[in-house]
């Protein structure tokens, strides 16, 4: 198990995430049908297909420019709020991935933290608001807390586990953002589709490596 992520590794991380969404988009739309308007699976799949397409077609071999291109491609998907949110995540990863082209666990943590921080600016949601942040924020904490000796793949596994827990926890929540917000108590018992997507994306990252 390699202890750094290079450009090729980054690409397979991204493809791994897309694979997870491809396998689960119908389930994600069903979840959104319960708490929103039933299109989240379609939207997030469109976004992740754009991620893989960009990774495949990108010329150049540096993480920074690839992730910038990925962020731009995701934002170009006309995906309501999902496009800007997920797009900022990748753009934020790009911002932090300057110079260094071989990421160890520490660097990976800081890159993902920067992505989530950028997304948080648009999101304004905290843990407990029943959004993607309920998966992302615990994942970042897990990465930061992870043993520095741990290989990136293992660190990502812990992050994905934390995200999955966070997504599971959204079942108990009322939504403070998005369409689910208008449904009040009616969404209690249903997990937030966006949070589930994020946990799948992180799972895909680790499996891609």
């Amino acid at each position: 198990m390699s202890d750094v992520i290079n450009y090729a590794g980054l690409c397979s991380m991204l493809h791994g995430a897309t694979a997870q969404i491809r396998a689960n988009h119908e389930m994600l739309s069903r979840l959104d049908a319960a708490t929103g308007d039933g299109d989240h699976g379609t939207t997030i799949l469109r976004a992740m297909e754009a991620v893989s397409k960009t990774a495949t077609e990108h010329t150049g071999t540096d993480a920074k420019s690839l992730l910038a291109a990925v962020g731009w491609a995701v934002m170009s998907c006309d995906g309501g709020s999902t496009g800007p949110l997920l797009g900022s995540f990748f753009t934020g990863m790009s911002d932090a991935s300057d110079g260094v082209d071989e990421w160890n666990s520490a660097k990976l943590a800081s890159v993902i933290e920067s992505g989530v921080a950028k997304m948080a600016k648009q999101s304004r949601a905290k843990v407990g608001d029943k959004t993607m942040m309920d998966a992302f924020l615990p994942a970042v904490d897990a990465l930061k807390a992870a043993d520095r000796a741990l290989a990136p793949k293992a660190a990502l596994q812990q992050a994905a586990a934390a995200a999955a827990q966070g997504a599971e926890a959204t079942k108990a929540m009322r939504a403070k953002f998005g369409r689910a917000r208008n449904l009040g108590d009616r969404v209690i018992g249903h997990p937030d589709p966006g949070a589930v997507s994020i946990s799948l994306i992180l799972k895909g990252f680790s499996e891609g490596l």
Partner: protein
Amino acid sequence: MKKFINDPKNLTRELLEGFAIAHSDVVTVKSEKIVCRAQAKSTDKVAIVTLGGAGHEPALSGFVGTGMLDYSVVGDIFAAPGPPKVFEALRMANRKAGILFVVLNHAGDVMSANMAAEMADKEGIPYKMILTHEDIAPGADAPAEDRRGLVGCIPLYKIAGAAAEAGKSLDEVYAIAQRFNENMATLAVAMNTATHPASGQKIFELAEDEMEIGMGQHGEAGTGPSKIMTADQTADVMLTRLLLAIKAKAGDRVMLLINGSGATTLMEMFIVLRACKMILDAKGITLSVARCGEFLTVQEMAGFQMFAAKMDDELLRYWNAPCNTPSLTIG
């Protein structure tokens, strides 16, 4: 699903192509989803730019043309366009005179607009952003972020557009538009649901004997269902709340729009307007502008948005100024 469509994937592209065919004298579509005027306005005048999802036809792009919008960025059905497209439009509109950037308060639209605005800042494109959130369903004094942007953006385009046409500076156009923005309110009512043209799903459910006041533009719940009322009762409940929200009193002049959501007939809108006129007369409020029609729809939803705004001489002058767009022509 009972709609005249082809592959749902191509809804926006195909409808914009047809739109451009029907109105080639007034509009053209650039880079697939940016609607702009066939004859561009002189660049020493302020440009008006907006964005929003498709599926609300004629809104928003039906109001691109002389005296109203310069650029309208179209997203997918009920989904905001992405920041890059919006930025592209701001670039097209870029001019020394500046851009009035009109954004309706919906999560996706606001995120795209903010990110596009950041990009514009980096390039030093001069603009001022105005956010419409005139929905009073959550209460007239609910926090701004809870109040959605409904049909009010359209008369606002008209008034800002006329001020821009008149050669006002960006600060002046912004001030006029903002004054109108602060004096307007909308309340929606739904009686029957609509079908999402991409997913084929109903966007909400209402019982056979129910209507819902406060229903949003995408089936977002309102103040809860109530039994169906007569046109006169409905007008009374809604107009009373609106007049309170805009603090209209005897002697004031107001504009009223009865904006059909899709399946509600002009016949019904006229009957509702008639009821509103009687209420205004009783209160000694002058009805200076009254319009019934479909400006911003929600597919084939049955219902309407009632819009009210407090007017003054300047606002009335700009409302009555000539405009020529696919869906609003004032001669």
